[in-house]
């Protein structure tokens, strides 16, 4: 089995096959999605295209071109045709950015952080507070907000500034958390970060009194979005609408806009992570992860390096938090639960601890599983139940399936099983870090 795949891989990983396969996938995938926009298979075929782009050997210029084509033209067009795909990709971007940040903390510096979404919350609530009417509701009971309260910031373009502020505040939160606890090792750190994550969530939930800062469990809404220039939009419409096949509203433009924004953050995150990793700082992190005593004896200041890892990791989450708040126009404490932290951790490890492409793929897989594959699967089963379908051999009518066995209710169960199986068969992650790969190849090098 494994052999078959590796043979297949080697045989298509050379010209001209690599080009044919990649562009073929792009073309066929796009066409399929264009024609049957609700088919999961079609979308999966399309999603194979970026994978092929990443794995197959091709001229770098052409790779870049194909990547741009896919990200800037194909996905937005298809995404506007079926807004759901854009949402899937947006969420993948959001979580990929979070996973990249967490990967710095865990994968590079080896600090197990179980409360990572706290930093995401810091970013999100920063913009939620200033970009909403909350400032004028400080003294009103949550839920009883007067509808005519003004926005605090007249110009929503402050948003751009707040992306940076979010980065700064999240990094600061990282340092504040780090200062007292970095002396702790391993799981002690894990439990304290877990606690910190809970503290931030509990604060979000409870800081509606004595002064109403977060509006408590009600959450803050509405939150402003930055202005999009109407002239620009009209210009784009001219090209886009014929491609999409129907008129494009401003709201749909916002979806595209946030998709691009998230994409930019991802690109920045990848570049930052790559560059830090390949520098004195990255090496120091790895050294700390491997052996603290030896690292400190080499002159590496432990505390400063760890704080830096916390701050760098946190800042991605901060930026994404701001964008998330604007995208949803609503934040509430539910988004920042412990399970979210666990979810991001799962993405990192599933994808491949320490591996940048790995954690992105990890994010994609988990998001995909959660909001598409399992959902689609259970919808399919539930439509079977409503139909007259019968399982042939045992002659069992789907209709008679006990409602307790309703598959829609057992997504978490399936997800759990998938996690266990993945870990057993691919403990090094979907795309293992170079480091681990090298370890496996071992003697072949040099």
């Amino acid at each position: 089995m494994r052999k078959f795949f590796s043979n297949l891989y080697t045989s298509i990983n050379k010209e001209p096959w690599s080009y044919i396969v990649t562009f073929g996938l792009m073309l066929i995938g796009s066409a399929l999605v264009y024609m049957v926009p609700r088919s999961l298979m079609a979308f999966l075929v399309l999603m194979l295209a970026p994978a092929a782009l990443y794995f197959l050997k091709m001229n770098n210029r052409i790779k870049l071109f194909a990547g741009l084509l896919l990200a800037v033209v194909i996905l937005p067009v298809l995404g506007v045709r079926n807004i759901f795909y854009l949402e899937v990709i947006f969420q993948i971007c959001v979580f990929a950015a979070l996973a990249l940040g967490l990967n710095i903390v865990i994968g590079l510096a080896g600090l197990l952080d179980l409360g990572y979404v706290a930093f995401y919350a810091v970013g999100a609530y920063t913009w939620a507070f200033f970009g909403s009417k909350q400032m004028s509701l400080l003294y009103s009971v949550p839920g009883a907000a007067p509808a005519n309260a003004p926005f605090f910031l007249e110009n929503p373009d402050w948003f751009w500034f707040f992306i940076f502020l979010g980065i700064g505040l999240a990094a600061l939160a990282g340092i504040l958390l780090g200062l007292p606890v970095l002396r702790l090792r391993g799981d002690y750190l894990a439990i304290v970060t877990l606690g910190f994550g809970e503290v931030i969530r509990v604060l979000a939930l409870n800081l509606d009194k004595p002064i109403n800062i977060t509006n408590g469990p009600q959450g803050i809404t509405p939150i402003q979005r930055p202005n999009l220039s109407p002239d620009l939009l009209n210009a784009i419409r001219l090209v886009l609408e014929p491609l999409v096949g129907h008129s494009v509203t401003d709201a749909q433009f916002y979806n595209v806009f946030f998709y691009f924004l998230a994409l930019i953050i991802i690109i920045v995150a990848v570049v930052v992570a790559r560059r830090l990793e390949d520098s004195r700082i990255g090496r120091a992190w790895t050294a700390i992860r491997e052996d603290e005593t030896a690292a400190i004896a080499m002159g590496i200041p432990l505390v400063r390096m760890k704080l830096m890892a916390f701050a760098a990791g946190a800042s991605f989450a901060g930026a994404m938090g701001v964008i998330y708040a604007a995208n949803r126009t609503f934040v509430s404490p539910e988004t920042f639960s412990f399970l979210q932290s666990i979810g991001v951790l799962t993405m990192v490890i599933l994808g491949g601890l320490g591996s940048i492409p790995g954690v992105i793929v990890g994010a994609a897989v988990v998001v995909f599983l959660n909001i598409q594959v399992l959902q689609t699967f259970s919808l399919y089963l539930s439509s079977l139940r409503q139909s007259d379908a019968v399982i042939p051999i045992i002659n069992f009518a789907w209709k008679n399936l006990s409602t307790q066995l309703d598959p829609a209710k057992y997504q978490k169960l399936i997800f759990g099983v998938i996690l266990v199986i993945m870990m057993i068969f691919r403990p090094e992650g979907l795309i293992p870090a170079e480091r681990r790969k090298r370890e496996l190849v071992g003697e072949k090098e040099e």
Partner: protein
Amino acid sequence: MNRQGSVMKQLTSNPIYKFVLFPIGQILAFILGAGITLSVLVILLAYIFRGSVSNLDLVERTLAILPKVLIDGITIGFVYATIALGYTMVYGVLEFINFSHSEIFMVGGVVGVELLRYLETQGSLAGMNQYVVIALAILLGMVISGSLAVTVERVAYRPLRGAPRLVPLISAIGMSFFLQDAVRLILGLTTGEFNVILPKFGTFDDFQVFNFPGLAAPVQIQNKTILLVAVTVVMLVGLNYLVNGTKVGKAIRAVAQDRPTASLMGINVNLIISITFLIGGSLGGAAGVLFALKVTRLDPFVGFFPGLKAFTAAVLGGIGNLTGALLGGIVLGLLESFGASYLGIFTQGAFGAEYKDILAFAILIAILIFRPSGLLGQTVGQKA
């Protein structure tokens, strides 16, 4: 000096002292210490704030609920402690956070309650001796949870030996999701819903009333609280003996520290790990039944928060140390209870019980700053 030393040595090597008196003494000392410290603190605060806030009876109100607050804290502390024992057991050997322990605990509770419900439908519950009944329930919970834990280890952790540390953690999380929904599925198929409600039986809900001279109101302690404390202490003593006084215990510790070398000593590593999970799991099962007795309602998701708290307690006490797990639980319980009861009173409702977790975590951090390996944990530094 020398003679004294040898007397001490004799004393400390006496098993009764080592496994019964010493840990119980430690627990008592900590309960008293933490209880008195916190009590003094709130009384002081009450006096300080007496004038500054509008309600004048602050001191009286503080004192009136103090005994109850202490008992509440100790009770919930012991609940955390029972769960924490199981965590610590497994952590001690595999050095990984067995996330699914919350679910193993939950399963124990559900099974125990289902037994009681079964007895109730058979009509035999009322007629039986309540202690026999609860012992049966605990036993069943232990058997089921223990075997479940062993199975989970076999299926989800053993194939991952030697993988990086975080990999079994994710597997454990997966297992945890799986178990939650699997229990829901089974409950759903059999009873149609997933609330599991403890039938009323025996006198566990009744109070023992203690009158202390000098106290305005008598101190009331529920029978089930007394049972909970007693069972937990027995569990601790037994466990302490098992780990520190028997050959199996020594093998467990050896496996924990160095698996290959342990196997070179003739220890069957797989067997020892299974035994550890069996013990940890059955402790979880017993904890589950006791928890059910205390709170009267369970569902498949009920394990999560107590599990989290218990793990915190284990860390606070010095993870891997059994008595430490218990102390951690008690300290955490007391902190929570004091926080929840007094924050509202002192801040005039500006901050209430919902901040108890923040308070508890703040103090956890403070304790860890001064004792980076927990209350009773020792640092045995590897030499440079």
